[in-house]
């Protein structure tokens, strides 16, 4: 706009200047023409003067001829010439009347000429009258007059030349002035036009840019409208969500299909009405709709769940998201509400919550029960450990008692019998044989007591360790059970802590008892070895194996094992932080006790 306002005076000035330029050109042209005219005027004046002189000369000559000859031809020639001269004189006057000096000069010339002509006329008249012609006088008079005339014409010529010079100079000055003016105005006009061009082109650039941006804006607008249209269609098509917009007061502005389905109102009956109609009556009384609007205005976005009312009056549990919409200036235009029917979910959650609560209670009960069970299991285990220990101690005590008390008696009995034998002397009615038999019986009893007591508590175990106690025990076992045994032990197995040795020995006893009682195996193979920090005792038979269901019942820790044997073995191993393995199949059973050896003394003993 301002460009245009600026351009107008510039353009007008340029036009004005161009007009001025044209005028100046015209004037300079006029000046130029005037100069030319002046030159030609001067030429005319000169020519007229020349003509006059020539005519006068002709007239003079013709007069002379007439005077001399009296010929009428000469007279007529003279008359013609003089007639010319008058006209020529008038012409000169006419040509020079614009200048005062020349006018005077002309009048002088006219006077002189008329005088001459008058004189000439007089002479002619005298001639015609026949008077004598006095030539020298005539000539002298004539010369004088001619000289006067010539002087006068020269004066006119001179003045005319001067005038010409002056006038041409003036015309030239005007021409130069006009030319300068033309140049100046033209240049100025050009400059102004240039400015005008600049302004115009800038304006054009601006306009082009504006057009460009307008076009882009248009394209954007088109895209936006397309998007908006698509979005609108999309929103409209959404069925699972009620999506609708409210104006700033909470009146419904748009209503999609999902809203229609969810709330039951058609678009036409709901547009323009306040959104509070979807709330239950008590919520409306409580001012909840208004609060929701305020919260959305304050927070920009609110989410809540609550009961809403359908057109048919039924309630549903709604999950609502409400967003305040503002224009670029931050002014509130309205709200977008997205509502979902969460009734099922709410009910499901409620049910889930209840189920959870029940579950939690149940879990708590179960935990308590488990705790109780664990406690009782622990006490059971403690009891069984205690039992095992008591059993060991009992065995040890019984063994000792047998050995130390019954054994003493038998020893003394044998001793006495032997004394008796020597007292009796030789063969009194076969008494010696009887005594010898008694001695043998006492000896056998003594051995038996010792065996039983050693089985109950093997002294070799304490003294020599497992590696010596096991073969000793296997030997007795083979004799009693008729089961062939083999023993395989590492050469440098060494000693173990006493409690481990006792436990492994008891496991061996128990294991071999099982082989004897249940497996029906003719052989038992015992291995004793170390693997890293573990001592491993393995008893393998080739019997019928443990029934599968029995094995399955036992579980991981053998606590459920019906056989006290396996359970006891497991208990002993567990007590030492080891593990007890049973592998049983048709081809026999392998039991394996794996016990960690943490006692550095034991290891020292071994390496020594």
């Amino acid at each position, binding site marked *: 706009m301002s460009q245009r306002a600026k351009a107008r005076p510039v353009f007008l000035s340029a036009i004005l200047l161009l007009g001025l330029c044209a005028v100046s050109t015209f004037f300079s042209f006029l000046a130029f023409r005037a100069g030319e005219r002046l030159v030609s005027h001067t030429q005319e004046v000169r020519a007229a003067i020349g003509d006059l002189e020539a005519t006068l000369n002709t007239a003079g000559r013709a007069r002379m001829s007439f005077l001399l000859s009296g010929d009428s031809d000469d007279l007529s020639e003279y008359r013609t010439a003089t007639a010319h001269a008058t006209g020529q004189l008038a012409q000169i006057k006419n040509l020079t009347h614009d200048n005062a000096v020349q006018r005077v000069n002309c009048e002088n010339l006219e006077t002189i000429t008329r005088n001459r002509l008058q004189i000439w006329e007089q002479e002619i008249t005298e001639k015609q009258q026949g008077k004598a012609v006095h030539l020298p006088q005539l000539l002298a008079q004539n010369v004088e007059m001619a000289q006067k005339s010539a002087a006068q014409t020269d004066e006119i010529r001179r003045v005319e030349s001067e005038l010409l010079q002056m006038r041409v100079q003036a015309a030239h000055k005007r021409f130069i002035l006009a030319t300068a003016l033309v140049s100046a105005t033209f240049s100025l006009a050009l400059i102004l036009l240039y400015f005008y061009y600049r302004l115009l082109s800038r304006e054009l650039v601006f306009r082009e840019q504006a057009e460009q941006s307008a076009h882009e804006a248009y394209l954007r607008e088109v895209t936006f409208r397309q998007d908006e249209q698509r979005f609108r269609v999309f929103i409209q098509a959404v069925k699972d969500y009620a999506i609708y917009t409210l104006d700033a007061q909470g009146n419904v502005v748009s209503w999609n299909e999902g809203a229609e389905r969810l709330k039951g109102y058609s678009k036409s009956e709901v547009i323009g009405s306040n959104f509070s109609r979807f709330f239950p009556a008590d919520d409306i009384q409580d001012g909840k709709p208004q609060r929701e609007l305020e919260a959305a205005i304050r927070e920009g976005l609110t989410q809540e769940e609550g009961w809403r009312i359908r057109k048919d009056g039924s309630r549903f549990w709604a999950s609502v998201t409400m967003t305040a919409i503002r224009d670029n200036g931050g002014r509130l235009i309205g709200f977008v509400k997205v509502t979902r029917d969460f009734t099922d979910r709410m009910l499901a959650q409620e049910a889930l919550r209840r189920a959870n609560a029940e579950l939690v209670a149940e879990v708590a009960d179960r935990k308590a029960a488990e705790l109780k069970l664990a406690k009782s299991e622990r006490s059971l285990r403690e009891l069984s450990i205690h039992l095992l220990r008591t059993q060991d101690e009992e065995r040890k005590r019984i063994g000792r008692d047998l050995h130390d008390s019954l054994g003493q008696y038998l020893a003394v009995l044998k001793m006495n019998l032997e004394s008796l034998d020597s007292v009796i002397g030789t063969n009194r009615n076969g008494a010696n044989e009887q005594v010898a038999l008694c001695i043998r019986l006492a000896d056998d009893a003594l051995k038996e007591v010792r065996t039983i007591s050693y089985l109950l508590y093997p002294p070799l175990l304490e003294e020599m360790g497992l590696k010596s106690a096991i073969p000793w025990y296997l*030997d007795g076992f083979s004799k009693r059970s008729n089961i062939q045994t083999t023993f395989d032990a590492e050469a440098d197995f060494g000693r173990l802590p006493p409690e481990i040795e006792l436990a492994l020995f008891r496991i061996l006893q128990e294991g071999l008892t099982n082989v004897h009682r249940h497996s029906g195996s003719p052989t038992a193979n015992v291995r004793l070895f170390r693997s890293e920090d573990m001592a491993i005792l393995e008893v393998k038979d080739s019997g019928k194996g443990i029934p599968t269901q029995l094995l399955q019942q036992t579980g991981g820790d053998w606590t459920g094992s019906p056989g006290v044997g396996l359970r006891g073995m497991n208990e002993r191993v567990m007590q030492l932080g080891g593990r007890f393995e049973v592998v049983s199949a048709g081809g026999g059973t392998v039991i394996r006790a794996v016990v960690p050896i943490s006692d550095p003394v034991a290891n020292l003993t071994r390496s020594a």
Partner: protein
Amino acid sequence: MATRILIADDHEIVLEGIRTLLARSRREWEICGEARNGKDAVEMAKTLKPDIAILDVTMPGMSGLQAASEIVKSSVGCKVLIFTMHESTRLEIEVRSAGAQGYVLKSQAARDLVRAIDALLAGGTFYGPSAEGSKAEKEKTNPSARFRLTLAFA
């Protein structure tokens, strides 16, 4: 001169058996004292100054082996013979380390006791069946040795 013998055992019947055996075996042997435990045995050895003390291993309070080392220290000249039910390979080592001059198994009392006392009184030692017993007897009473044989044949 009578040989004074101190006997110690917590079983009355054993004491009686020893008494009977010794009384019938040598007239000059005299039971100078009978102790029922190790501690008494040590005290009696000090006061009675016996020539020889026959000590059971398993006794309440102080064991026979402990009593043996005490007696060896406190009663110079008193020989000590261990008389025990326990039959084991370590026995000889322990007997020796206690300072006793020998041991006799109770089951072999009739055969060995008198010989052992004789040996000790003569300034010698008597270490159980290995001292005098036959090779066959030793093998018979050592099950591990026997087992090794079984293994060798297997």
